[in-house]
């Protein structure tokens, strides 16, 4: 019973307006990469999926979007929670997923294992939602690209050491590539594939 109540509870109380508000924060953050957006509404998904990650799932996933979950998330009540509230099915293979979720501290797979889109249809790529310890306080990286006036420093804390290599490789295959939503508690930081990251000198 405990597991079942976890599955049915924790969605938006007011789905129409809360999904709109979360989407607007995501849209603004994708339009201005590196800015940290606070979600006015957050979901309460079963552990170990974070509140902001859960809100992203409720806002963007449905029966059209196969979802890939990290091993720890797949073993939890999260697949049933996502299926019950959004109707999204689980993707067996990473490259079939429209959305991928990784919990805090979970192993982040190489971005090239996910759907990258094609040269003709680069939009058919996975959006990765990775929860980190914090969106500030980590290794400072200088971000440049569309949506950024000159440059902005991002310093998410808790990303794997190979993240910058993953991201540089992802940037190199533009217009193909994954897009990234980093979450921590009720906040998000979005990195579209156009953003170039470099270690601050």
């Amino acid at each position, binding site marked *: 019973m405990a597991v079942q109540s976890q599955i049915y509870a924790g969605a938006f109380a007011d789905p*129409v307006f809360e999904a709109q508000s979360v989407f607007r924060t995501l849209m603004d953050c*994708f339009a201005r990469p590196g800015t940290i957006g606070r979600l006015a509404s957050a979901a309460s998904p079963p552990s170990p999926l974070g509140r902001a990650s859960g809100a992203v799932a409720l806002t963007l996933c*449905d029966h059209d*979007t196969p979802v890939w979950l990290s091993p720890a998330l797949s073993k939890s009540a999260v697949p049933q929670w996502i299926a019950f509230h959004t109707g999204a099915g689980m993707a067996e293979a990473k490259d079939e997923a429209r959305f991928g979720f990784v919990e805090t501290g979970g192993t982040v797979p190489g971005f090239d294992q996910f759907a990258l889109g094609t040269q003709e249809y680069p939009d058919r790529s996975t*959006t990765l939602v990775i929860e980190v310890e914090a969106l500030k306080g980590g290794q400072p990286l200088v971000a440049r690209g*569309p949506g950024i006036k000159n440059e902005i420093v991002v310093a998410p804390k808790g990303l794997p050491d190979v993240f910058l290599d993953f991201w540089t490789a992802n940037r190199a295959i533009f217009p193909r590539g994954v897009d990234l939503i980093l979450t921590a508690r009720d906040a998000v930081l979005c990195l579209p594939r156009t953003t170039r990251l470099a270690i601050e000198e």
Partner: protein
Amino acid sequence: MNDLAAYNFAYLDEQTKRMIRRAILKAIAIPGYQVPFASREMPMPYGWGTGGVQVTASILGPDDVLKVIDQGADDTTNAVSIRAFFQKVANVAVTTKTKEATIIQTRHRIPEEPLREGQTLVYQVPIPEPLRFLEPRETETRKMHALEEYGLMHVKLYEDIARNGHIATTYAYPVKVEDRYVMDPSPTPKFDNPKMHMSEALQLFGAGREKRIYAVPPYTQVVSLDFEDHPFEVQKFDKPCALCGAENVYLDEVVLDDKGGRMFVCSDTDHCEDRRAHGHAGALLARPTQESQEAAE
């Protein structure tokens, strides 16, 4: 029951909004690239801005302030009906003032007042594919975008020069976004092209009949295609606006009588009204203002 109860907020159902929202996020991530989306039937005919309406409906929230313009004007049929539509189905606040709006849906103009951060400009787009009149097959134009093969577009502009001595394209003037995708800025006059470059506002484009959404994020390079010896130029007007005296704005020609009388006035009605409210007067208004001042004295 009020009228609102008959519809979901902003008319579209939630699944449609999610689908459009996903397309918008991918469009922002790939500036200038046309994302296909499952455009819906709207309660207005194609060609009346169904693409823009669907984009606006998907991003709109209860706190937004909406402005709708048609060729720069707030009071023309298309603008009035779309504004009334959103008042009815979303009960949203509307304005005609560019400064106050958070979302501006536009048909073929960019407001004269520079847009600021936090504003979103939604364009209604009839033909999103800039290469369509050069290559009718979608499979081919997709491949051309994939291979960044835009030679044909330069040939078209060159033929303009060969025939007319200058680039005669005056609206829907092709631009290159972030040095990658060639994009149709929708049939805005090329006068507005420079405003797209490094704009502070987010620009979203919706084509309902053609089922495409594309975007230009803020602070993004938007360069009009040209040649070294024939650089891109915007239209110039001989006279300032007849009503507000504004220079360096886009003017509409208005026929005044059947004896050849005409005036040129701002196409951006809000900009013109705002200037007049601040005491600027053009050639046609200057004299009546003097008279009224004398009368007051």
